[in-house]
């Protein structure tokens, strides 16, 4: 009896959680299931919720529908370069703010922080005009260069660099280690967790970007995945299984990244939340 009384609330909790999880996961599960339907199954009504077999042909056919390989390749390239760029620029700026004394430090730091407060959409019209004036529309530069610096990344890394023990810095100075060497051979290796957080964060942000790629690309050759995937919806004539096979291909890298880097991502997202 006591055993049942102890187990019952737990069973209720699990039941509630299972229903909630099913509801949250449903759109993704539905995507996977539909991606595996045969064309005949996809046109059935009432809609089939589960495939009868593993029909993988969709994943091959979708490449003929839209150049999805090019979309994925473009986005990997753009997100990768932006990630590396943000790691370099942010860690350098963060080091200057954390460990160096220079004129105008407070003012510049305030300016950096201001860029976090102002919504990026406010600058989008002039940025579009700039990129167009430089002839960078529909090019990798246009997609990449505006995002190579990040005030969020600078702030995140500065907080981390400040936590490194001051004694380490003093000791390195005593040994005649200058800023550049201290930065490259001590700060960077010690900051791998924070750099990892920023890497995951900036990669995902770029992978998922929508408005900017929509504005600056117009040929299929330069499109990124998010624009590509929204092109799928307009292929009204094609069957749903192909569309969902495309979506599956697009969301798989992000899902893998979540499975591998959830901890890093959580740390990155909560850096602002937990400092209070």
């Amino acid at each position, binding site marked *: 009896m006591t055993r049942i009384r102890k187990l019952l609330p*737990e069973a209720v*909790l*699990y039941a*509630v*959680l299972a229903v*909630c999880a099913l509801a*949250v*996961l449903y*759109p993704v599960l*539905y995507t996977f299931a*539909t991606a595996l339907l045969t064309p005949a199954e996809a046109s059935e009504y*009432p*809609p089939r919720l589960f495939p009868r077999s593993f029909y993988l042909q969709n994943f091959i056919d979708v490449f003929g529908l839209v150049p999805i390989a090019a979309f994925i390749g473009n986005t990997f390239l753009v997100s990768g370069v932006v990630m590396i760029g943000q790691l*370099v*620029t942010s860690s*350098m700026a963060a080091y*200057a703010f954390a460990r*160096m*004394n*220079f004129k105008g*430090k407070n003012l*510049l730091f305030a300016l950096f922080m201001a*860029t976090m*407060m102002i*919504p*990026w959409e*406010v*600058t*989008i*019209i*002039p*940025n*579009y*005009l*700039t990129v167009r004036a430089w002839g960078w529309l529909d090019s990798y530069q246009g997609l990449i*260069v505006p995002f190579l*610096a990040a005030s969020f990344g600078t702030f995140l890394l500065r907080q981390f660099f400040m936590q490194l023990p001051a004694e380490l810095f003093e000791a390195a100075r005593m040994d005649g280690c200058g*800023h*550049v060497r201290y930065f490259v051979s001590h700060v960077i290796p010690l900051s791998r967790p924070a750099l990892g957080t920023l890497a995951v964060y900036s990669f995902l942000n770029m992978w*998922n970007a929508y*408005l900017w790629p929509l504005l600056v690309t117009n040929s299929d050759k330069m499109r990124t*995945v998010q624009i590509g995937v*929204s092109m*799928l*919806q307009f292929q009204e004539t094609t069957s749903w299984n192909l*569309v*969902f096979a495309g*979506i599956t291909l697009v*969301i798989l890298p*992000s*899902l893998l*990244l*979540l499975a591998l880097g*959830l901890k890093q*991502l*959580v740390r990155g*997202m909560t850096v602002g*939340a*937990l400092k*209070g």
Partner: protein
Amino acid sequence: MDGLEKSLSLPRDPVRARAVRLRRTGTLSGLKWRENVLAYAFLGPSLLLFAIFFFYPMLKTVYLSLHTTDPTGRVAGYVGWDNFSYLFRNPQFLQGLKVTALFALLTVPTGIALALVLAALTNGKTRGIKLFQFAFSLPVVLSVGSASVIWMFLYHPTLGTLNYFLSLLHIAPVSWLVDPKWALVSVSIMTVWMNLGFQYIVLSSGLRGIPDEIYESARIDGAGPLRLFGRILLPLLSPTLFFLAVVSVIGSFQSFGQINILTRGGPMNSTNVLVYSIYQEAFVNFRFGSGSAQALVLFAIIFILTLVQFAWLEKKVHYQ
């Protein structure tokens, strides 16, 4: 003594002493100067990029908002405040502001409440809880592009599974995205789902930051789960909730992708939120001046809302 002084080579005559002092201060200010140069070299790349892609555009937006442009973006003439006064006389823009506010009201409180309940339920160390944590965090990696397309199909009036499920429950089908009464609600449901992952992650890390002893002592004092939640967890979580409220309100005012994919502002402008309207004005109608004015209105609204939240909400926040 003499030997020691000699071995330390202390300067003995005043002239040499001054020379040494001069050289020392010289090198000191030289060091300072070198550090300044080095610091600016470290900051250089970021500063240059921010100057080109942030500070200059900010000023340019203000400049453009006071002018009209031709469709290529060249300034055609100075119009003063006309762009702004036109906006506030334009019923469509005012309707857009209302839609934007309604959208924030529909998405932010519901999303945070849902995420809070899920975070509280998965806060324990029961077996298998990690799986649920993964499930509830999952929407965080789905971009607005893919999420919108998935929901587009779920909302399909005849073939979508949402209406199919409703028919199983003998409920008449809803024309989700094409009915002006339902379109904003539909987009909001999708947005709540999409933001759930982020809000859940933030809230559960907030809950994890509350020390176990607090739960223990509350239980010893005989507090039930609801009292524990309302009287102890909520106040302790209030800094996190505050942060999340500010960030979510800002995020909801910046929504664009789901509107562009799901409804294109329609039907009958019922989902025409502010950023979509900026996009239309600047990049479909090529009126960069009036588009810039709208962008500044967006900035002003977000700025004021953030200030208000800091002034009003932060008083209720309990910092440990």
